[in-house]
């Protein structure tokens, strides 16, 4: 029954995620210890693998690109109070928009093909999120349920589209035709040899621009103001004359369009064709990224880098320490997601209590709250 007051902003944004992360690493360290390896050595390998040399760093950035997009996608919806967990499916389906336009324009130049394909991916990804948004706004079907279902529909649809529509008759593998050079996004290694053979490409610039776009959208536009009002207090947005149903559909569409940018990175930047399951779970990692980054672009940037580093460093780990298997890496990644995403509130009550001890005006406020609610 202790009265709770919110944490100061810096503690919420910096301290809490760091504590969660520390706990995740601690438990991961125990796991590594249990399989008989040295956790400190493992940390060293992960850090070196993720940041220590050009190829590794390139891979970290490549993963981070995807996570920025899906993290932003989740964050935009979250600001409007919507829990969009369909980023995976939206990114996947957006591959259709990307590949169709990229294939059509791959005889021209990437400067034309890339923006056009971005629009295509945004439209398809946005549409895939618009439908659950519409169902939520007009029919009251909860987006959490519908977006999960749409992930499965997306998976089935893509198997069909790739195998039956996009696969050239000449190939056996379930994949689309390969893009000519004009339809490919340039690799950073073409400009900086530092990145070795890593697949980090110009999509990362799009990701950085998307961070700025979301910042401006959420905090500097009237639409963003309306979205935040809806997210914080749907009665207040209705009172203010905003159409909640329209805002829900708009927020979901923007969210899906952002998730759809993953398709540009993967289809045009890495695979050069549309393959099955190219999203590889980025949509779900994006949820953890957004939660850890407190739905703020700056936080999302750092959280995406962290997860990119974990992905890349984890790959490295299994090569260097044979005792740590691929499954082990998944466990460690899962622990980080668990503690920073699903259980991000673990330390919150304790931290709030601690802060209350040091903050008189918070204590005073807590008193007025708790006396009003005091029970016999």
């Amino acid at each position, binding site marked *: 029954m202790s009265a709770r007051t919110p944490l100061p902003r810096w503690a919420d944004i910096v301290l809490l995620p760091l504590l969660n992360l520390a706990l995740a690493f601690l438990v991961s360290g125990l796991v590594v210890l249990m399989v008989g390896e040295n956790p400190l050595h493992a940390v060293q390998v992960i850090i070196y693998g993720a940041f220590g040399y050009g190829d590794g760093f390139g891979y970290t950035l490549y993963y981070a690109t995807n996570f920025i997009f899906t993290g932003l996608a989740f964050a935009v919806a979250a600001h409007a109070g919507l829990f969009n967990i369909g980023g995976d499916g939206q990114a996947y389906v957006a591959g259709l928009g990307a590949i169709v336009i990229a294939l059509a324009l791959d005889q021209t130049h990437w400067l034309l093909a890339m923006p056009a394909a971005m629009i295509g991916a945004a439209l398809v990804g946005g549409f895939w999120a618009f439908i659950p948004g519409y169902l939520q706004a007009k029919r009251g079907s909860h987006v959490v349920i519908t977006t999960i279902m749409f992930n499965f529909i997306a998976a089935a649809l893509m198997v069909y589209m790739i195998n039956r529509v996009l696969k050239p008759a000449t190939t056996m593998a379930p994949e689309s035709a390969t893009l000519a050079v004009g339809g490919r996004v340039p690799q950073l290694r073409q400009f900086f040899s530092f990145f070795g053979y890593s697949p980090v490409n110009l999509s990362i610039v799009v990701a950085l621009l998307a961070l700025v776009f979301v910042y401006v959208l959420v905090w500097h536009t009237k639409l963003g103001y309306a979205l935040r009002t809806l997210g914080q207090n749907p009665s207040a947005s209705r009172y203010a004359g905003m159409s909640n149903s329209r805002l829900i559909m708009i927020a979901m569409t923007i969210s899906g369009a952002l998730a759809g940018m993953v398709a540009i990175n993967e289809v045009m930047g890495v695979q050069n064709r549309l393959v099955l399951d190219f999203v590889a779970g980025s949509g779900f990692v994006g949820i953890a990224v957004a939660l850890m980054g407190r739905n703020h672009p700056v936080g999302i940037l750092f959280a995406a880098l962290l997860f990119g580093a974990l992905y890349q460093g984890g790959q490295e780990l299994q090569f260097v320490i044979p005792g740590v298997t691929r499954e082990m890496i998944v466990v460690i990644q899962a622990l980080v997601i668990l503690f920073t995403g699903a259980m991000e509130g673990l330390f919150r009550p304790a931290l709030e209590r601690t802060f209350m001890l040091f903050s008189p005006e918070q204590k005073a406020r807590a008193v007025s709250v708790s*006396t009003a609610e005091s029970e016999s």
Partner: protein
Amino acid sequence: MSESDNMNPQRPKTAAAPAPASRWAIELEKINKRFGAVHANKDIDLKVERGTIHGIVGENGAGKSTLMSILYGFYTADSGTIKVDGTERHITDSRHALALGIGMVHQHFMLVENFTVLENVVLGAEDSALIAPSLKRARAELERIEDEYNLVVDPDAVIEDISVGQQQRVEILKALYRGAQTLILDEPTGVLTPKEADDLFRVLETLRDQGKTVILITHKLREIMAITDSVSVMRQGEMVKTLTTSETNPEEIAELMVGRRVLLRVDKGPANPGKTLLEVKNLVVADDLGVVRVKDVSLSVRAGEIVGIAGVSGNGQSELLESVTGMRDQRSGTVVVNGRELSLKGDDGAARARAAGLAHVPEDRQHMGLVTTFEEWENAILGYQDAPEYGGGPFLDIEAARRKAAEQIKRFDVRPANNRLKTANFSGGNQQKIVLAREMGRDPDVLIVGQPTRGVDIGAIEFIHNQIIAMRDAGKAILLVSVELDEIRSLADRILVMFDGQIVGEADPATASEGEIGLMMAGISQSAAALEARP
């Protein structure tokens, strides 16, 4: 803190209460409580005489709740002594307080809605693991208590089926069943009709006459004058003065509470009604569950007059307000603002209502009129965010919004004067000023105001009332809804009484008695009410 399962309440000893060891039921001496830098209670001395009704008044944040929480064992004082019946006690928690005979009736009832009265009374004070024998014993005990204090409630009625006034009696019964000798009531009349409040006062008087001690926390001076024997005034954590009620007057108490002279009566000249600015015809409105809450209501408000809607809360006033202001699809009927009929279909009707010149101060500012997690300036533009002055095109001109916020803060004396502060950190009165400043600031033709002074301090009430009168005198049409009958009577030029979704009568505040309006609020027709209210 729930009452523990193994608690064995001290039962009241019939009639033969232990001989009073002291004249004072409760004595607090030099109570201090600090929360960090905030000194919530400064050297508080309070003596409550046994067998009296003792009022405690003070503005929000004056420290009344903290003090009562200390007495009830919710907090422990930093220093000072508490004596119960002349014996010094160190009250550790509310269970301990109960064992010492101190019971509390909270503003928000702690009842299980789908349990019977008897089950609620026994809950947490069962004698054994088996419920049936407990209930049987409790029934006999409850009947005895009901008899003794003339506090009749059907023990087998289910809580959700009985009126709010009856529910409050159950709370009192709960405390008495647990052996309370001293009852603390926190703002008990906030949810009651005037008639129910009178009934409560009669119950409290009976309790007093039977030797119980009652501590009444309230902000309504009328109640203090009507019921208490003595009254203690608190201000900013200090006990200002304890007065004998019969030797004081409301003006003196108000002055002590606020620290300056307060005008309790609203000073207003006669109304000069002009042309009709708001016209509601045959309005039928359903709530979220589809239950019709407003049944064929028609009313009109002219320029330069205040029309008050009186009624016990929950009789359709909220739905009426929400419909007229465009927040709720109406079933049928029309709303005409300034000669323009509003289409209220769709979920952005509030924007169209605003465009027609209607401003709305909602009943529940925290859940509707404000986004409490926003900074103040963000709330200063809520509802007007699309106005060109806050930026053309898609962008929000944050500087313009902050300038506007600063302007409003200055004009309405919002404190602290900081538009970057989170709105939740403003006090209730200042939050209300933020809403009023925003809604009155756009020079609307029609102003709809719901519960303008709910949870607002006396000093701010005066200010808010004067602002509303000023709007009227500027030729605006004002529709006022309040559950505070005093407020309606002092502000409105015409009173409409709402009961069960209908306007059941109209009264002239200058001539209608409170009893007459009160009876109409209880659903008795105007003619019958006029007859019954006549002595």
